């Protein structure tokens, strides 16, 4: 089988890749590793903001992680916040500009380790912001160290024999913590391992942003992203490792929608 059948003329005309580039994505170079899931997640978010018609009314507070290498290419007004602090910064943005779409970007080390109280308090206050968690279960930027979401048994640079519950404690799931809080409208978790999962994640992002636009309170989407470098596996094994090792612990789907806990996820 040949990859491109040259015997027949194409049925649709060729498209320039630029025609498919989100308007909020700048052209340029970045330093993220091969196989990283974060660019797919961020691109999906930009696409959804554009589709919703809020491209020129969106603002962000972004945390610190590998994705910071990509934020110069996100053509969206933003504050570069400290590790853990993005939900509070977003609160200030939204309180002074309630007519704008305000979102945060944080990794698991940023949100679940350093800034857990910030995201929980912002959620309970019902701040009309959308917090996006890019969860790969490691501190990728430092080279693959344990975070609060590293799953049991996972090998990292400071859990060399795998995360041991008795010694290193247990992972924290944001979808366990957020849904019971009163100010929370929407909670979902997706992945970017397959085209189908990217499409689902885009749907979750759209619903979260729609909840914000509707004034329904706090909304949250966690995206499990591949980090073959931080997982110490070949690039091509990233999606499989995520599906086999991480997704069974951090289940995907909607956990709260329209302010109601999704019963099947209980």
């Amino acid at each position, binding site marked *: 089988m040949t990859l491109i059948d040259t015997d027949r003329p194409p049925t649709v005309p060729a498209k320039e890749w630029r025609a498919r580039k989100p308007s909020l994505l700048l052209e340029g170079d970045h330093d993220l590793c091969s196989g990283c899931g974060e660019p797919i997640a961020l691109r999906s978010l930009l696409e959804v903001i554009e589709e919703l018609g809020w491209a020129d009314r*969106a603002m962000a507070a972004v945390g610190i992680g590998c994705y910071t290498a990509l934020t*110069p290419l996100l053509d969206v*007004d933003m*504050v*570069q916040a*400290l590790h853990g602090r993005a939900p*509070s*910064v977003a609160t200030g943005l939204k309180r*002074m500009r309630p007519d704008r779409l305000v979102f945060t970007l944080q990794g698991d080390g940023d949100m679940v380790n350093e800034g857990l109280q910030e995201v929980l*308090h912002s959620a309970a206050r019902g701040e009309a912001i959308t917090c996006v968690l890019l969860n790969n279960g490691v501190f990728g930027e430092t080279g693959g160290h344990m975070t609060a979401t590293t799953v049991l048994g996972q090998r990292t640079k400071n859990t060399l024999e795998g995360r041991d519950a008795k010694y290193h404690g247990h992972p924290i799931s944001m979808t366990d913590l957020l849904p019971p809080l009163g100010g929370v409208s929407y909670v979902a978790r997706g992945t970017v391992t397959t085209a189908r999962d990217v499409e689902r994640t885009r749907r979750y992002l759209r619903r979260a942003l729609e909840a914000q636009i509707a004034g329904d309170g706090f909304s949250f989407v966690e995206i499990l992203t591949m980090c073959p470098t931080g997982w110490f596996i070949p690039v091509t094994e990233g999606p499989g490792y995520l599906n086999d090792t991480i997704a069974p612990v951090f289940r995907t789907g909607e956990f709260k929608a329209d302010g109601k806990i999704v019963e099947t996820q209980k």
Partner: protein
Amino acid sequence: MTRRFVEGSEAIVEAAILAGCRFFAGYPMTPFTEVLDHMAEKMPLAGGICVNAESELEAVGMAWGALATGARAATGSTGQGLSLMQESFSEITRAELPLVVVNMARGQSDYYQSTRGGGHGDYFHIILCPIDIHEAVEHIQLAFHLADVWRNPVQIYGDYLLAHTAEAVELEAIAFDTLPAKDWALDGSLNGTGGSRNINSIGMTKGNKGIEPERFWKRLQAKYEAIKIAEARHEAEFLEDANYVVTAFGTTAKFVRHVIREMRNEGSRIGYIRPITLWPFPSQAFCDVAGSVREIGVFELNGGQMIDDVRLAVLGAAPVAALGGISSDESGFGVGPLLNTDVIRSILEAAYERATGEEKDQ
């Protein structure tokens, strides 16, 4: 003009709102708490927002976001709470956001915390240190103006007495020069044009890979040199023929100034310098008297902090003596036995006699 008898905390809040402050976030802590009380009550009436933050870490973060939209925004606490805020102060400062901080300090032992930046990195805050509520009303308005002029945080260094005593003050808006529009403020309108903004502390620019910290931070240092020249403020009395000069700051200076005026009336050739800006420190005022005085006495209620700045100002041209010291009652809020004009008088008389060899005229 109408005068009102107002507690310091309330006066500061009303003056902040007069200055256009429309966002405040804080966490209660003595002796700052009443500032938050009045903000929570008065800010909504002015069309602004006051968030009762769940921690100081979050209060300063919220102010950070509000500032990024171009709003006049403030936070505050006392020394312990400001310790928690230092990480964000550093980022906000190096991102050139005009934060105003209301510090109701527990006495004078947080001079270093305020004047040395306080967090990581090379930066300073402009520190305005009012002697009384009348001056605090002026300073809080000046703080918002200077913060916008320099795009740098400004702190009001007050204390328990400033926050909790009342004075008759005129609460009127001060007219400052018109400032340029905040074209750096975020609103999303330039998204997708290639011109969107990233407010950050490390020289990140949209469309460009990496960071430019050296260029970015050198520019900040040039700004600090300009602030040192333009904004150092002080008050002085009786320097023309003084052979002894005492310096003090904040509420303590009110007690010291009273004693020095009494000693002057009784014939002592004693003078007084009060730094109004703790940073930039008014070094020139001390240089100017260093050659003609026998000693400069530093009366501060801490282990000896401002004395370093006085020594750096005179660089050995005059002896510099510590006259104050740690002084606190059981509350720990900085109102101790040394904050007493009789006690201060005996200390200043002894220092004057020792350094000048003159007993005061009887």
